[in-house]
């Protein structure tokens, strides 16, 4: 489903975030990327999501060579992924419902089905009763769950989540870990990054350990 072959990423300022990473993630697999901050976890996830492009080597997602896609092709690839961001990237000028509906608008979903899909996603993350709330009024954990609802509303085959439990206390973190486990159980390929050892133990999945831009385990 996702494969890297000697993928390198050097940012314009010269910093080499990934120094030739090769890995393979199968369909339906759940993989956690760990490592210290600055080890290249976020960069690896961005390459897998087509948000950043490898400067050398190649990244294949869904049998597509990400580096060879043009602007519109990359966008369409991202439409098919469920992306959860470390800083949520929620829009504070609209309701929770409208935030979750955004991917459907981008995919030009028929209006009649939008309500059903959005409420199903909100229900899944336990925020159905908050659909009219502004994300500002939600707690950190709720915001993260709202972000997850937005990621799954389009029913993607791949979920990519950058530090979904970062900055959350244990109780909130474990609900979120449980969510990802349940998505994986219904066949969704999950790639997430974390440095939360308790969460990792609960996930009980394959680990990729990064150190200074290289896979060490």
């Amino acid at each position, binding site marked *: 489903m996702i494969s890297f072959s000697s993928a390198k990423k050097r940012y314009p300022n010269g910093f080499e975030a990934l120094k030739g990473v090769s890995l393979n993630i199968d369909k339906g697999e759940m993989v956690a990327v760990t490592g210290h901050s600055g080890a290249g976890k976020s960069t690896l996830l961005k390459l897998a999501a087509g*948000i950043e492009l490898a400067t050398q080597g190649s990244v294949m997602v869904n049998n597509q060579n990400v580096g060879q896609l043009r*602007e519109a092709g990359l966008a369409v690839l991202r439409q098919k992924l469920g992306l959860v961001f470390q800083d949520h990237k929620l829009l504070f*000028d609209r309701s929770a419902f409208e935030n979750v509906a955004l991917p459907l608008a981008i995919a030009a979903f028929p209006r009649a089905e939008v309500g059903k899909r959005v409420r199903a996603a909100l229900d899944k993350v336990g925020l159905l009763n908050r659909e009219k709330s502004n994300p500002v009024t939600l707690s950190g954990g709720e915001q993260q769950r709202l972000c997850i609802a937005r*990621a799954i509303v389009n029913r993607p085959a791949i979920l990519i989540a950058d530090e979904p439990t970062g900055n959350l206390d244990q109780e909130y973190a474990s609900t979120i870990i449980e969510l990802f486990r349940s998505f994986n159980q219904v066949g969704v390929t999950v790639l997430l990054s974390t440095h939360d050892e308790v969460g990792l133990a609960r996930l009980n999945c394959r680990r990729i350990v990064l150190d200074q831009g290289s896979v060490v385990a």
Partner: protein
Amino acid sequence: MKAWLTAHIQACERAFMRFRFQPVSSLLSVAVIGIAITLPLGLYLLFANITAAASRVNTDPDVNVYLALNATDQEARELEKRLKQIDGVSQVKFVSRETALAEMKRVANLADLLTGLESNPLPHAFSLRPASSNPETLTVLRKNIAALPKVEHVVMDFEWAQKLKRFATFAERLVMLLGIVLASAVVFVTGNTIRLQILTQKDEIEVSQLIGATRRFIRRPFLYFGAVQGFFAGLVAIAVVSGIVAWIGSEVQALTVSYGSEFALQSHSAGQALGVVALSALLGWLGALISVSLYLRQPGRL
């Protein structure tokens, strides 16, 4: 096909939403663009009316041939025959010196003065209507006629027709120039409106692109907004110009009737109005396209 249509309908709805959320600034932009279009449109109509009024006056050049004072009636009749044979003369009218004097007494209120004269000071004359109004042909014609016996003066009145033509060309160019300047103003005004909108929606654009919005998707509602804004501005311009024509038109008509003319102020045709509105919408679309494309092509953007 259905998805494409849904995408366009939804983009159109988002564009109208922006109108609803920013009614004041949207209306101000519509007014500014409307006025910018009113100027060349109004000037165009002004010049179109001037040239129309001028062309009602007979601009076909008349050639007046004055004979020597000592030319006899017999000589005049012979000359008439020869004039009729000249190529490029379509009509010959003889004006005898007696007729000319009688005419002058009647028209010019000079009766008292003229009756004091011992003899008729006016010569026999011919009024010719040339077949062509081409200045070069007319110059040749004048030379040929002047060479005929007993012809004293050949007076041709084609220069002012040429001047009128030049004025019309000049006015046309002026309108065109003003049109181009103000059309680019419409593009820039729309571009700026769109730029301000983009700034207020930076987050939405960024997040949308992260989760898979194509540039085309981001652009679409802005393009609709620009086109719709231009469309309304075009309507404003048509309304303003129609209002002015109606307001001034009745006065102009009263004035021309008092001069015994039937000239009526011309407004734009329905087709021209449609063209102005369409062009204005197109310019708005173009301004939006430039603005949003510049933004999306900034380095470091997805």
